[in-house]
């Protein structure tokens, strides 16, 4: 209970800080919309490749861009942690009776909620551009949920790196090193049917791909059992990342 309460208190602090950055909010809304429009236009003819398996690229793209936004947005979560470390805010929080895990959980919740809203906007824009939510409102919510779970996991990982490295350059380098390979070993932009075999194998163990396939199944209203399994896997992955980040406080404490 105390953990949830502390998480909520610390989450509200992050939300308040976000609300005071109008430029950040505007760009966070504009960026995914631009991505859908741009990628949609650029890759429109890809669906004509034999074996792609989809008829409309926007239809195919929308869940993928929702997950891409989660991945890229949440990757920066650790930068906020670094600012807290540099300003002494983290030490001040650690010197209170607040549960350690709640300091991490608040950041996961923050990333998860931001991504949830962005994913909803992306799906909305895609539908304006002609995509159809075959899975209905429930399906749209599943896209948003898959994006949040991945966002929380990536945010946790980013925070763990921040606590362990305590350097901006390292956090940026590590996250960049992870993000692009994770993107290109997934069916975010390209149908799994057209991937080389080794990329398919990589995609099978790539949490980013789990999120994309789950979001796409939700949006299309297909494969409910596999969808549930993938969401459970994502939730477990987010939990493991969260525990890893919380465990990093021990290392931080020894290094202080």
């Amino acid at each position: 209970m105390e953990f949830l309460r502390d998480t909520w208190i610390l989450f509200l602090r992050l939300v308040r800080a976000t609300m005071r950055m109008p430029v950040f909010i505007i760009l966070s809304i504009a960026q995914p919309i631009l991505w859908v429009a741009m990628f949609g236009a650029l890759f429109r003819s890809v669906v004509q490749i034999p074996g792609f398996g989809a008829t409309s690229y926007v239809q195919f793209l929308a869940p993928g861009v929702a997950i891409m936004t989660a991945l890229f947005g949440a990757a920066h979560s650790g930068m906020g942690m670094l600012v807290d470390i540099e300003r002494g805010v983290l030490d001040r929080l650690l010197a209170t009776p607040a549960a350690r895990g709640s300091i991490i959980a608040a950041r996961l919740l923050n990333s998860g909620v931001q991504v949830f809203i962005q994913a909803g906007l992306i799906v909305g824009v895609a539908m304006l551009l002609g995509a159809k939510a075959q899975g209905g409102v429930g399906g749209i919510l599943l896209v948003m949920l898959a994006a949040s779970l991945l966002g929380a996991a990536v945010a946790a990982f980013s925070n763990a790196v921040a606590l362990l490295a305590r350097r901006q350059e390292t956090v940026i380098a590590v996250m960049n090193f992870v993000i692009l390979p994770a993107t290109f070993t997934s069916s975010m932009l390209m149908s799994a049917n057209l991937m080389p075999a080794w990329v398919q194998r990589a995609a099978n163990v790539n949490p980013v791909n789990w999120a994309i396939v789950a979001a796409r199944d939700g949006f299309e209203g297909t494969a409910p059992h596999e969808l549930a399994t993938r969401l459970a896997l994502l939730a477990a992955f987010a939990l493991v990342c969260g525990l890893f980040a919380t465990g990093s406080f021990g290392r931080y404490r020894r290094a202080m």
Partner: protein
Amino acid sequence: MTSVDSVAPSAKEIPRASDALAIEARDLAKTYSGGVEALRGVSFSVRAGEVFGLLGPNGAGKSTAVKILTTLSEPTGGSASVFGFDVVRDAREVRRRIGCVAQASGVDFAATGRENLELQGRLFRIPAQELKRRVDELLELFALADAAHRPSRTYSGGMKRRLDVAMGLVHRPEVLFLDEPTTGLDPESRAVLWREVRRLASGGLTLLLTTHYLEEADQLADRLAIVDQGRIVAEGTPDGLKSKLAGDRISLQLVESAKSAEARQLLGGLPGVTGVLADAGRAERVYAHVIDGPRELPTVLGALERAGIAVAGVALTRPSLDDVYLNATGHAYQES
């Protein structure tokens, strides 16, 4: 003042603040993974209601000691307790009882002064009604009421520091740790903070403050420990430490540092001189402790002149913490 030999209370028992040891450090050691030894066995105790100063130059290990006592860092040797609670095993109990004002601030710039205070209060589980009153009271007390609704990034250095101290006090801690509270402050803000520290101390709060300003330790601390290279080299009240060095100090600046040893030998042989020191870092500086400065000064200078040791500068001073530090460490204090 409480008695010196009061016994530390057993854990899990909340002691009354007036008859207990507030802080006890036993052989605290901290070696970082890179091999840097920040603390090499530091022991001291702070009685409840006392203002205790850790004085030393930058890098002496003061902040490391504070980080261990406030549960932010783990010692690699020794142990420490706050009101009987071990800082490693009972970290949570310790955190409930302490307030921290760290060197690196801790103010969330994106939040207003009021929000910063409220966040602290909530994390310490102060009920909403009471918290509102407490925050108003602190804003008033620290002259921040007019700026309470402004993001703290717009505050001046002095205001940020005051907010910092106020944040450490929201939950009415039993001990307040102040790590270099006046570093980087202008003289006026420093004076305001000193006044505040004295007021808190007179209210019975136990304070541990670190500083690299000799004057600050002298002015504020009831007792102090001088820390140098991870060790405590002297401990006592400011007056007690100074009175151990009876007499005056004659500080000499020689023209040639090569003559340092000769000068020391010569001065050591004079009847009125009780001790001779050279600055370990700058050999041309030689210090002679004498019982009666004005009487011995001509003798000292005459002896040096007869020996052909040229003097570039001379000063006669009453003993200060500077001398205590020099005496304990063998090198002159540098405030930087």
